[in-house]
């Protein structure tokens, strides 16, 4: 772990999530193989990697929605894959997750979406729920949009509502699945700022999955680069840039070819062209 203590990444100390030797397969396909990740408490940690490398899968593993083939995922002292359903649900109340699509309930208004976890998990009277919901919506700047339905929101607004919902129960950790993808530059800026500000003001631990290099470098304390099911580089944003890792270089400088090949695996080009059509 020598290259893993600068720039805001913890050393061996205080990790909220500690993943060791994680292996996960979809049927015959190995998605993650031997992944070690530490997510430091109170920091913004980013998982970067090409599409289809298993970033969403990783978040689902942390949330206990998928079971790994091998390895441990210890969240706040509890090994997620071995938890009973009840314990898992108790742990999930302290994790928020913002899905790639927002995953708002389309039949509920913005207000009711944010109120949903409060109503499900607390016995609070409706006036207090109202205050809490308005506070969360205010934090993401959408207090005025409370009566809109999800279909009436722009993509960026939907993600902000999803964020308000994710922090409704005051979780210890929030996971963001590609929060910037497909958003206009202003929205990207807003979401970036929200992630950082909420993390610091609410004392959260944030895990961001993204491949937007510039944005992520600006707000992350610690970055993991995964590719082909393994962690290929890790460290603070500055450290990663100067690390000399070919992976980091390709990714951070948007090179089309490199350790991540431009070509999907195939037989030789010439061979392929010469092959008999039938």
């Amino acid at each position: 772990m020598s290259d893993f203590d600068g720039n805001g990444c913890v050393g061996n100390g205080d990790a909220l999530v500690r993943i060791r030797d994680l292996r996960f397969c979809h049927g015959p396909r190995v998605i993650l193989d031997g992944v070690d990740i530490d997510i430091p408490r109170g920091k913004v940690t980013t998982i970067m990697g090409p599409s289809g490398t298993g970033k969403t899968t990783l978040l689902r593993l942390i949330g206990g929605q998928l079971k790994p083939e091998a390895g441990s995922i210890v969240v706040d002292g509890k090994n997620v894959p071995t938890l009973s359903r009840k314990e898992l649900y108790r742990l999930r109340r302290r994790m928020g997750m913002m899905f790639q699509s927002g995953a708002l309930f389309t039949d509920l208004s913005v207000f009711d979406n944010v109120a949903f976890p409060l109503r499900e998990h607390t016995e609070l009277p409706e006036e207090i729920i109202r205050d809490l919901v308005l506070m969360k919506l205010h934090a993401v700047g959408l207090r005025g949009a409370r009566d809109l339905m999800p279909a009436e929101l722009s993509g960026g607004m939907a993600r902000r509502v999803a964020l308000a919902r994710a922090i409704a129960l005051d979780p210890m950790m929030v996971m963001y699945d590609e929060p910037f993808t497909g958003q206009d530059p202003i929205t990207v800026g807003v979401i970036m700022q929200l992630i950082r500000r909420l993390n610091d003001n609410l004392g959260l631990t944030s895990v961001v999955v993204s491949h937007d290099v510039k944005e992520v470098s600006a707000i992350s304390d610690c970055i993991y680069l995964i590719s082909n099911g393994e962690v290929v580089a890790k460290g603070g944003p500055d450290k990663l840039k100067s690390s000399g890792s070919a992976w980091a270089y390709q990714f951070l400088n948007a090179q089309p070819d490199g350790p991540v090949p431009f070509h999907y695996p195939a037989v030789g080009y010439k061979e392929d062209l010469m092959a008999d059509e039938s």
Partner: protein
Amino acid sequence: MLNWLQFLGRGGLDFFERLGRGHMFIVRVSAGLPGLFLQPRLVIQQLFSVGVLSLQIIAISGLTVGMVLGLQMYNTLVDFGAEDSLGPVVALSLVRELGPVLAALLFAGRAGSALTAEIGLMKATEQLSGMEMMAVDPIKRVVAPRFLAGAISLPLLAAIFSAIGILGSYFVGIGLLGVDSGAFWSQMQAKVDVQEDILNGVLKSIAFGVVATWIAVFEGYDAVPTTEGVSRATTRTVVHTAFAVLGLDFVLTALMFGGE
């Protein structure tokens, strides 16, 4: 030949695997039913969208089926001078067979397909995953109330279908064809047995309600979470419900009325 066997074998395995998953699913759904007593609002909402919104098609179909039945039966009965029996003949056909079966088939087309599409789309848009991550079990929160509402609605819809059907045949028989109104009702009252006919019809429609809704919610929950997957699942709901209801109808009829 070998390919054919292979194909058959794989198809069979797939079928039984799905059947197994369907049964495990219904066990989990049933486990979620007691909790609904604490949240009756969830069931009432679904009773509206599953049951009340199906009323229109059930009522219109019931009326036309009853009217056609009245005409057809009259034409046969009148040859034997037995047109006074129009009441019991129509009532028995509706209460024993046509009410439960046709209501179930219409229910699959109107409410079952909507249930499948709704749950499938919730899955495709990660709403179910999102719920799970909020520590809320979607089977208890989303599936169980819909299942219960469907299972309650269909027997009621079938009863409404039969009742309106009888009215339809009454209008045709008495209004158009000149059957005696008193004979129509009194014969019906004399020949239709509460236990033998009505209760068995109700039992049938309860069984159909459970099966039709089970198929609908399972197909939705099990759908491949893509646009195409949901559309396939919706089609499957209608087709499988039709097969299941017609097959079950034969079995139940044989059990209930076979030994007469």
